[in-house]
């Protein structure tokens, strides 16, 4: 029994806890942060599995860059997700249960953890291990496989990344329309001049009561700063 098995079980338990919190939460900011936590735990787990390269990537991409990107995407949308009615949750639940059952069914074909005769440890993988030292003369077999033996695959990956970037640039533009953008979140038209950050935004809860005298720009209370402009206040302005 490997000594890290308790560590692995601990990491997986933490992953389950984080995943359930992500499902339960409504605040998108907290969800994005928890996704970063999830990636970081994954990265730690990969290190314990001796997959340092993967851990590296997961920590940098999953916990670092994608968290920031998700935050940026969240700012373009709402801060809270709306609860989904129960009646619409049975379909997804069915899909998840079926997929889970399929995975358990496939579990029998998986090699045992650390099996020396698993598919990854026999056939061509062993050839790479044996021949890298004499053919490529570099100690890191992962780099040899990625860049040389499987150079085609890596070229494909690079092109995929490039196309992803190209797609985003074609859709959004590198400068975000050079600051001349118009957006209508929640039906409120905002632009650079009348941007949400350009003035204090009133909240639905803290919006002036009907009995009060309506002020043109009601100063938001400190509590009010969490959410975005709603339709109600937007129509007024």
């Amino acid at each position: 029994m490997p000594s890290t098995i308790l560590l692995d079980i601990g990491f997986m338990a933490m992953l389950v806890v984080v995943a359930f919190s992500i499902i339960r939460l409504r605040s998108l900011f907290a969800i994005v942060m928890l996704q970063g936590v999830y990636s970081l735990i994954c990265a730690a787990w990969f290190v314990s599995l001796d997959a340092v390269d993967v851990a590296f990537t997961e920590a940098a991409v999953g916990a670092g860059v994608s968290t920031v990107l998700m935050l940026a995407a969240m700012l373009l949308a709402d801060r809270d997700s709306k609860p989904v009615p129960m009646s619409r949750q049975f379909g997804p639940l069915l899909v998840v249960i079926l997929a889970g059952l399929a995975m358990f069914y496939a579990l029998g074909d998986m090699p045992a953890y650390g099996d020396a005769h698993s598919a990854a440890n026999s056939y061509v993988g062993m050839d790479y291990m044996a021949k890298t030292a004499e053919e490529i003369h570099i100690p890191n077999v992962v780099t040899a496989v990625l860049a040389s033996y499987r150079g085609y695959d890596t070229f494909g990956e690079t092109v995929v990344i490039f196309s992803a970037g190209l797609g985003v640039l074609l859709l959004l533009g590198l400068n975000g329309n050079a600051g001349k953008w118009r957006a209508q979140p929640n039906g409120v038209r905002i632009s650079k001049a009348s941007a949400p950050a350009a003035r204090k935004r009133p909240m639905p809860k803290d919006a002036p009561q009907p009995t009060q005298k309506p002020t043109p720009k009601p100063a938001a209370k400190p509590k009010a700063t969490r959410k975005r402009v709603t339709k109600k206040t937007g129509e007024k302005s």
Partner: protein
Amino acid sequence: MTPHVILRVVSKFLIPLIAMFAFYVQFHGDFGPGGGFQAGVILAASVILYALIFGLAEAKKAIPPSWVRIGMTLGVLLYGGTGVMTWLLGGEFLNYGVFSPEHPSHGQHWGILLVELGVLLAVASVMVAIFYAFGSRQPDLTEEDW
């Protein structure tokens, strides 16, 4: 942005180190874990951290969007171009051995270096480009908006 003195000072100290670490990961990839992809993401993370702390406009002054656009293209072209070079030298596509016929392993080193450089350029540029694209679409938020 002005109140975060500690954040600004610490990140000003850390950002060059992060960028340097990216290049260490890049050029040490033959010997330890890492390579072009990881290095590119780390390099992009240093730019993104700079943008988060000092604002997007400052980051765009440091790394102009045009560089990013050229970088992502250049990265893919460098990778593909290495393959075409091996073709022209009489080998198969991406068979780096032909770079140095007497010592194929040296040619492999050259090829891996070029290819990883292409990956670094492409990945770092694309990450920064996506961040610029998303980040430019909303005005800078005030402290309370978070």
